[in-house]
């Protein structure tokens, strides 16, 4: 008889009477924390084209295309990105940052090259990355 006594029974009964610890995503809520390292975006107007973020990215996910001193574009590849936040750390002008948006997988190659900053010489500024992303 002694063999059948279980020390797990109280905990098992306690767990039975509580709500389950799992969430049936996507039919249930799944909120990410505020500081979660998700999609990379940039404030295009603050970018100076110094390429510190490009140099420090460990996954080579950022590219700076130059066409002269005032004309440059910053391209970001979400598939190469490791979501480590080094670019946000390296940027000295508070330009590039990570949101807490989860980046889902995609089969659309167009969405894997995102233009974050489009700096033109006549003062026109490009978007901050939100326009060019397909879903």
């Amino acid at each position, binding site marked *: 008889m002694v063999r059948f006594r*279980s020390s797990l*029974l109280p905990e098992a009964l306690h767990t039975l009477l509580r709500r389950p*610890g*799992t969430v*049936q995503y996507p039919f249930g809520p799944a909120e990410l924390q505020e500081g979660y390292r998700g999609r990379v975006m940039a404030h295009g107007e603050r970018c100076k084209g110094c390429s510190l973020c490009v140099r420090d990215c460990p996954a080579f996910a950022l590219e700076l295309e130059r066409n002269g001193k005032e004309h440059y574009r910053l391209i970001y590849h979400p598939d190469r990105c490791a979501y480590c936040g080094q670019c946000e750390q390296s940027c000295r002008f508070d330009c590039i940052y990570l949101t807490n948006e989860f980046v889902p997988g995609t089969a659309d190659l167009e969405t894997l090259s995102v233009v974050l900053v489009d700096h033109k010489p006549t003062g026109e500024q490009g978007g901050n990355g939100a326009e060019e992303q397909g879903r």
Partner: protein
Amino acid sequence: MRELLAALFNLLIFPGLGFLFVCAMAFEWGDRRLIARFQGRVGPPWYQPFADLIKLLAKEDILPNDAEETTAAVLPMLSLAAVLTAALYVPVAGYAPLSFEGDLIVVLFLLSLPTLAHFLAGWVTVGVYSILGGNRSLLQFFSYEVPFLMALSTPAIFNGSWTIAEITARQTVWNIFILPLAFLVALVGLIGKLKRDPLDIPKAKSEMVAGPLTEFSGRKLALWRLSMDMQTVVGVFLLVNLFSGGASMLAPLAFVFKALAILALLSTASVLYARLRIDQLAHLGWRVLAPLALLQLLVTVWMGG
């Protein structure tokens, strides 16, 4: 003509194939859901066992080169046929149209066929995990079967009949109160027969991948799983009849509750213990269960059954 229709109804609808199928799906769902809730998870929706079966029927059916195809195809059908036949003689809420004198022994023999088929399945589909799993299946069979048979014979001796319907009808007080040791041994034996946790040694996922059934897939695996689910149902019904029988006005409802209670006991046992090793099971079977069953048998005989 009427007799033919009645026989067909009994065989195919109730308490035969259709009823058993629905019960098998319901029992598997209830078992998985209860275990999940014990573990803090949500558990599958009600149609999950049925969906699993349909999915398996649609998968590719492939065996290794050296396997014997015909035997491998026959074994799951044999297992299913044995379980279905045994189910015909187990009364459901007092309704036992096909019972005859001494059908308890026939049922117990029929119920040991699926285990032997399980072991043979491992040998026939050659593969390292299959053969080792088959060996363990046979070792497990030797450990629990004798105490199980002794424990299930005790109500027969006590109530003075080898017909299940009669044993059920003759209980004035439920046998579970008069023969508690027999119930305990029968429960553990049932866990071993159904190869549930903590006695799922032949199909231990972390050691033997899936035991004797490793190489099965597609329709054959669907039949195996169906036969195992139905074995659960028949085993539970058998325990309900032998240990908590008795006629009453609320027979169907009471039957359902009793069956669910025994299923809940089985699920709880799955949750609470770690898997035993095969030598620990042999130790348990022969040094603990068999003496208990023997003791209960002797007490029953002495009480004048």
